[in-house]
């Protein structure tokens, strides 16, 4: 029993309690308090703290969004990461060159961001480069899945959906050399252990597909533009089996665009054609989401 006893700090508040207290602080305070001392700085940027902080603050709203420069791929351009609502700049990072597509995701506390760029699908080995805010650096992480991966979206920039501790993209897994023979799945990147994996979809139909966060859970949406309705599935037990997808509803929508879900109501104003503000999802294809 004595083995688990925490070591007391100077005024006898044990380290585990200090950790617990800091994990309840808002992002801004957490970042400021990295300056308290070395041990605070190192536990605050640890994956364990980040995931604890994320869980604690899931019910509150903390998020960040990313502004991408207009002309992409040129040298000297930076992406800016903002804290939501306060619009404080959390970080700026240089845009790497040598890639024709750039995919950005964010974890919500804004302490660590998993920003990835993917190599071209023609390249033999698939890998992503992960940018970590806390260390201000890029690292290469291999995608250990056999088939080639092609990300959805035909714009140069797309976004990742953060849910349950992982970033998610809709991707085609390309079998053989024929790019038309592919299976659409969700590619996830666990920010805690930095592992890629794939999640099968409930419906592989040919309609427009989105992934989003619905009440903290990973959800999958298909949009039928022609008949203007959307169908939503939610993954009840994250990362478990295919059967875990639960079809929530089908709904007729006013306009044909789906952006994401709000944290509270589930369905956003975006469905009414007002896409100015979307919670939980990082929108990058326009620059207009910054104003509320």
């Amino acid at each position: 029993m004595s083995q688990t006893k925490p070591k007391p700090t100077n005024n006898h508040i044990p380290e585990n309690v200090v950790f617990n207290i800091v994990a309840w602080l808002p992002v801004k305070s957490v970042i400021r308090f990295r300056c308290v001392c070395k041990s605070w700085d190192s536990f605050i940027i640890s994956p364990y703290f980040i995931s604890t902080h994320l869980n604690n603050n899931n019910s509150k709203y903390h998020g960040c969004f990313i502004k991408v420069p207009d002309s992409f791929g040129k040298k000297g351009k930076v992406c800016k990461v903002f804290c939501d609502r306060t619009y404080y700049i959390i970080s700026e990072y240089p845009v790497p060159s040598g890639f024709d597509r750039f995919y950005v995701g964010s974890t919500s506390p804004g302490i660590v961001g998993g920003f990835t760029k993917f190599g071209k699908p023609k390249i033999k080995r698939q890998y992503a480069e992960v940018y970590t805010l806390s260390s201000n650096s890029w690292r290469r992480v291999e995608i250990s899945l056999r088939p080639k991966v092609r990300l959805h979206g035909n714009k140069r920039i797309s976004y990742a959906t953060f849910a349950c501790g992982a970033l998610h993209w809709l991707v085609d897994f390309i079998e053989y050399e024929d790019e038309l023979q592919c299976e659409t799945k969700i590619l996830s990147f666990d920010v805690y252990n930095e592992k890629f994996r794939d999640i099968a979809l409930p419906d592989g139909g040919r309609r427009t597909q989105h992934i989003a966060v619905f009440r903290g859970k990973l959800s999958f949406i298909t949009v039928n533009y022609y008949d203007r309705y959307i169908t939503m599935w939610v993954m009840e037990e994250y990362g478990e089996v295919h059967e875990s997808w639960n079809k929530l509803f089908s709904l007729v929508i006013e306009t044909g665009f789906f952006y994401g879900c709000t944290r509270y109501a589930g369905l956003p104003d975006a469905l009414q054609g007002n896409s100015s503000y979307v919670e939980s999802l990082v929108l990058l294809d326009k620059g207009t989401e910054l104003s509320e």
Partner: protein
Amino acid sequence: MSNQSESPNPTSSSNKITLKTSDNEVFEVEEAVAMKFCTVKQYFDDENNNNVTSGTSTTLIPLPNVESHPLAILITYCKKHLEIKANNADNKKEMEIDMEHYEREFLKNVMPQELTELILAANYLNFKEALDFFCRAVASAIQNKSVEYVRKFFGLESDFKPGEEEKLREEFAWSFEGVDED
């Protein structure tokens, strides 16, 4: 079943457990209350496993790391916690609202120095709900404070090499805006 049986009844047939603090005060609490203190529960379980328990319904448990003052407050908090839970057994949302209301009132009567004392006691007793609550309370008390204030509060000193702290401050300058005066 009458309505009466649904409300918590202190004279019910449940076992009493006696807790003895470091300043030699003795508290007799209901088993349900004592079982929220995981350290006590653990002690109890160990005793049972060792077949030491006698036939009596009262067990005395020494708490050498807890003083009577915080323990009395924790017992009150725990009783209220159980009561609110019992009253809203089928409505989680109502329960949370009641609990929040109680906790807000509770904090009005707690001095900042007491909070540290309560945290240490709750941590020793491994009373998770209370510990989380007190940690949240401390967090909201320090969230707008300066780095210097927080160091003092936790009795810490900066151990950064020259330049390291300045670099962090520069990099995250935005997080130092709008901080309370010490």
